[in-house]
């Protein structure tokens, strides 16, 4: 099977301090893959480096065994929700439509097929009733759904999502994970930056554990262990005690109330 994403010695340095250091991995396709690590461990930087938004200082990455430039229309990126100004005068439809025309030339118009994809994407995230709503009037969870709809409209094979579960209500979180699973079942690969250790085991089959350098990468059952998590999260006590709790309950899968 072709790898989805591979990185070789990927290093990004901000102000002489490495944000990510010598990251080397090869990820499988068709899985929901979590990128976990403490704050400032370079999770977002890793995604941005893979997407070419940040030029790595050393190293390179490949997507589906090719340069990103050649497979750009098969890859979709979902930025952090807070990274844009939601007061921008646009409707839900306008934002989702960006997913269709982002890779079109200057003079190409949206076709019937484009319109169908936009509508279908909106209905997959249950946002159809809000199609004409101004984006400034959306809740956090709805904003996240709009971003996901925009990504769906791109009909990519690989999705890179930066913290899609931050600041959304429990119902939206469930709706999103259900959606991600159905995308996975349709053969898509999802690379998701996440920081909640409590839900990580339920959400991801495969994990990348990051603390500027790569701590571990592999199937969740192999890498989500006390030793590796301690190494990843270092001495942050509160997090560690949470980890201990999670590990104790390991044999009893977490259920959401």
């Amino acid at each position, binding site marked *: 099977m072709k790898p989805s994403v591979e990185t070789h010695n990927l290093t990004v340095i901000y*102000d002489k301090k490495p944000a990510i250091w010598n990251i080397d991995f090869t990820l499988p396709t068709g899985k929901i893959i979590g990128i976990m690590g403490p704050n400032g461990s370079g999770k977002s930087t890793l995604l*941005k480096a893979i*997407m*070419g*938004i940040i030029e790595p200082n050393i190293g390179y990455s490949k997507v589906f065994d090719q340069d990103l*430039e050649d497979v*750009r229309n098969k*890859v979709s*990126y979902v*930025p952090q929700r807070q*990274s*844009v*100004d939601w007061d*921008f*005068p*646009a*409707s839900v439809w*306008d*934002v989702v439509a*960006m997913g269709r*025309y*982002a*890779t*079109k030339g*200057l*003079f190409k118009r949206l076709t019937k097929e484009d319109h169908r994809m936009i509508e279908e994407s909106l209905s997959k995230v249950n946002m159809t009733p809000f199609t004409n709503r*101004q984006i*400034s009037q959306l809740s956090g969870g709805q904003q996240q759904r709009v971003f996901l709809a*925009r990504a769906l409209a791109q009909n990519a094979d690989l999705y*890179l999502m930066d913290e899609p579960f931050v600041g959304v209500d429990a119902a939206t979180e469930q709706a999103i994970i259900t959606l991600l699973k159905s995308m996975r079942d349709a053969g898509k690969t999802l690379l998701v930056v996440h920081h909640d250790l409590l839900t990580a085991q339920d959400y991801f089959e495969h994990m990348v554990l990051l603390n500027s350098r790569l701590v571990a990468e592999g199937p969740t059952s192999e890498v989500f262990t006390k030793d590796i998590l301690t190494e990843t999260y270092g001495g942050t006590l509160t997090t560690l005690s949470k980890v201990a709790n999670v590990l104790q309950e390991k044999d009893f899968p977490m259920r959401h109330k």
Partner: protein
Amino acid sequence: MIDFWIILTASLVATTTAILGCFLIMRKMAMIGDAISHAVLPGIVIAYYISHSRASLPILVGAAASGMVVTYLIQFFNQKVKLQQDASIGISYTFLFAIGIILISLFSGNVDLDQDCVLYGEIAYVPLDHMSIAGHYAGPRQVWILGSTLIIILTSVIIAYRKLVLTTFDPAFASAMGISVVLWQYYLMAGVSLTTVVSFESVGAVLVIAFLSGPAATAFLLTKDFKKMIYLAVGFGISASILGYYTAVWLAGSIAGAIATVIGLQFAIAFIYIQFVRKAHISQTLENKALTEV
């Protein structure tokens, strides 16, 4: 006829700047017009020094060149040095403006050049400098220059509209899609540079800045649709030109000053209006809620 030419001149500037202003305020760069209109000074002085004339073209080229330099500096300080946008704008344009002043003082002994004659246009004089085609009166020269600028800017914005909106709203996503955010930033800034330079020659720097930020800000208050925001901003710009001109005639005062004042008043009225609408909306909602609860 003089009335007509002055209002037309102001309206042409208003239209061009309002279109660009909508993009600028959404990029939190409204003050870039202020920066460019000052930073062009060294370019103008150097162009004058080289060409030894005050003809429009060399001056325009010099001005546009230093306009791009300040754009580059702002971009550089903001992106590479990680300085805040406003600080980047402040440090870049004051530096270039200061160089311009030093250059002027160096040459001032033997050169007929001072800031007033290059920097600050006076709209009332526009009809005096007219053109003739084949011996026929063809209107003021500035109207032709500003008209061409409007056509250039309008075409450029229409062609690149989606890229400009996308890179304004979500640069990270645009960049992930392989769209060069920096390229479109320069594309927009080249437009702002050109517009600022040709406009302040005829209407003065302060009015250009007022036109770049005011109508777009007023329109932003009133609509949540970016295209409508552009149309509204153009409408506010043109109506401010007309109202401002007649206010100035009535008060026998400065035309640019009166137009800029009307722009400010438009914003104030729009602000009060939306406060009123919001209050009405809230009390309406509360009333509906009370009714359904009963």
